[in-house]
């Protein structure tokens, strides 16, 4: 056979495999409103940047007549590519081939590209669209999952790991996304759960649809398993690209620095925050008023909205913002918001992203449900995450900072690098009303007009303690600044903190209260 003929054979073989599960299966996939695995990779990556691995991989199923079946690429496409010029490793499960089911070779292809990502120290993106384990391959399929989970864990904190749920992802399969850093979901396409509606119905008698049980909305707003919600696959890919632009390739690098840009002047920082600590405002506008181009890329927008997390840039450099959100529940910390913030803080710390914390909270959310849900151990995560973080940590106390909540929000006592306060800041054990009621209880009770006395005492307490100067006098606040100077001080502090180098102990790892 001449080389020409051999080359022709290669082209033919390739064409056949590139079709995946064939035209009928592709049409079915499109009818569900989904792109094919290959189309997804092409849409997400820079033009002509995808290089595929293991196109000709063959499955190893022998039982149940599987040996007579052809499964192109064994139901998964793997390779390397680029996003905005940044290298990534990627895999996409192909639902058109045996429902994207995971057999041994399918898993081997995934673990191979994961090992590659760890070696190259570049982000890993996994697109999940699979019916689950390939039952015909039995325990080999379970082995495959286990080997993926193990690598997800090894790669955690070394390279950013992104999971994109573009179809079903059920049972044990959900644990790969769960172990990664960011989970993207698309409305009406993503479905994630440990046990599906049918099992729930037979065992518990509870009837629920797939969408209500594990759809994109549920995971974005109720469970907190997803970080980004999109209405279409294309919107989802744009979100992934934006995220990649904000984060570094691996733990030993910094995020790509862009040209510094001023915030838009539509956000007037002096007018955003009402002086009365009981009045709400959108804290994201404060972030937009200080960040480059007023750009704020929010994470988990719908989950625990009483705390806001996300990325922005200061003077061209990526920073992570954590801010109490007074519009929701007055900005309290609770089980969900603690989990949300703690996880974000730890990601930023692992990947050299400085943290800026904006404080305005009345404390923790009271309630039997909170206590029963373990707000003690969940709240502890925030303290732990801040305390162990070695990246530059800057705090700005905007208004109220009461009680344990004040301590948790990257206070000086947790060894923050810089703590600024606005003149509207109130740092105290609790709000003036509560404090006056306790301190002046006797005076109020024995007064002729207790209500009048209460008001008088509240005012007295407010005048004396509801300000940043008591804390500043003790050195708990490093500087009281004018709101309009915030950006200037942040940029200056980040610059000064460039050389921050904290020696780390050689313990194996801490024991975060999970």
């Amino acid at each position, binding site marked *: 056979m001449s080389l020409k003929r051999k080359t022709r054979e290669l082209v033919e073989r390739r064409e056949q495999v590139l079709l995946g599960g064939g035209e009928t299966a592709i049409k079915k996939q499109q009818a569900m409103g989904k792109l094919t695995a290959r189309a997804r990779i092409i849409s997400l990556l820079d033009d002509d940047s995808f290089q595929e691995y293991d196109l000709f991989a063959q499955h190893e199923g022998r039982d149940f007549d599987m040996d007579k079946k052809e499964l192109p690429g064994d139901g998964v496409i793997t390779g390397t590519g680029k996003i905005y010029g940044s290298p990534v490793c990627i895999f996409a499960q192909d639902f058109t081939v045996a429902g994207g089911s995971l057999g041994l070779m399918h898993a081997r292809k995934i673990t191979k590209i994961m090992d590659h990502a760890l070696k190259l120290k570049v982000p890993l993106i996994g697109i999940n669209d699979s019916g689950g384990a390939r039952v015909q391959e039995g325990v080999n399929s379970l082995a495959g999952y286990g080997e993926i989970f193990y690598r997800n864990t090894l790669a955690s904190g070394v390279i950013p790991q992104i999971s994109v749920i573009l179809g079903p992802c059920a049972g044990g399969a959900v644990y790969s996304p769960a172990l990664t850093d960011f989970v993207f979901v698309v409305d009406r396409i993503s479905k994630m759960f440990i046990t599906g509606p049918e099992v729930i119905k037979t065992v518990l008698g509870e009837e629920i649809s797939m969408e209500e049980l594990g759809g994109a909305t549920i995971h974005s707003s109720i469970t907190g398993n997803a970080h980004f919600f999109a209405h279409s696959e294309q919107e989802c890919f744009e979100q992934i690209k934006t995220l990649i632009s904000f984060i570094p390739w691996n733990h030993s690098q910094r995020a790509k620095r862009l040209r510094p840009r001023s915030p838009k002047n539509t956000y007037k920082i002096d007018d955003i925050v009402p002086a009365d600590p009981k*009045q709400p405002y959108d804290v994201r506008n404060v972030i937009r008023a200080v960040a480059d181009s007023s750009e704020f890329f929010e994470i988990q927008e719908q989950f625990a909205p009483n705390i806001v997390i996300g990325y922005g840039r200061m003077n061209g450099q990526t920073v992570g913002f954590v801010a109490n959100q*007074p519009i929701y529940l*007055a900005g309290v910390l609770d089980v*969900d918001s603690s989990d949300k913030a703690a996880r974000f803080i730890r990601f930023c710390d692992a990947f050299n992203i400085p943290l800026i914390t904006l404080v305005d909270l009345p404390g923790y*959310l009271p309630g039997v449900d909170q206590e029963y849900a373990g707000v003690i151990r969940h709240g502890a995560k925030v303290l732990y995450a801040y305390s162990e973080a070695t990246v530059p940590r800057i705090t700005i106390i905007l208004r109220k900072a009461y009680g344990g909540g004040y301590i948790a929000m990257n206070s000086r006592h947790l060894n923050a690098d810089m703590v600024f306060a606005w003149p509207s800041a109130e740092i105290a054990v609790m*709000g003036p*009303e509560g404090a006056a009621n306790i301190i002046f209880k006797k005076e109020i009770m024995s007064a002729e007009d207790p209500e009048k006395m209460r008001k008088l005492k509240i005012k007295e307490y407010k005048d004396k303690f509801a300000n940043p100067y008591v804390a500043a006098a003790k050195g708990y606040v490093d500087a009281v600044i004018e709101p309009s100077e915030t950006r200037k001080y942040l940029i200056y502090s980040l610059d000064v903190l460039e050389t921050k180098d904290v020696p780390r102990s050689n313990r194996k790892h801490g024991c975060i209260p999970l």
Partner: protein
Amino acid sequence: MDINQKDLQVFSLEGSDYQTLLTKKFLTRTKYQPDDPTRIIAQIPGTIVKIMVKEGQSVNPAKCLFIIDAMKMKNKVHSTMTGIISKIHIREGQIVAKNELLLELEEPRSDKKSKKTERPAEREGKDSQRSRFGKKGKKIKKTTAHSRSGTR
């Protein structure tokens, strides 16, 4: 996000009233209800296989009330307190949902103790039950108050 002043609600915390929005999750949170030993509630959905007691029968925590088949297991359910079965809401073979009210109990009345052990007349039983049913609301309240102070 523009804040619509009309949507704002008062959220009180340690004497301070904050203007804010309440999240759906906060509004739909499970509200705390103290345990009421006079009401036997299904802890798990399943099928009632066998009922071991009758209305009017006195029981104690050692007494198995019924067996519920759930999660492929036959589970024995014992009485929560020493008392009298005042109402049985289930029959054998019935499928029950989680949190469904299955049985109601009441505190034993000390003056009735001797009567209770005799208690042969089923005819009389039905009548007296109906009359008791009318006043039950009051009585249950009383018994819960008793049993609560007892459990603490």
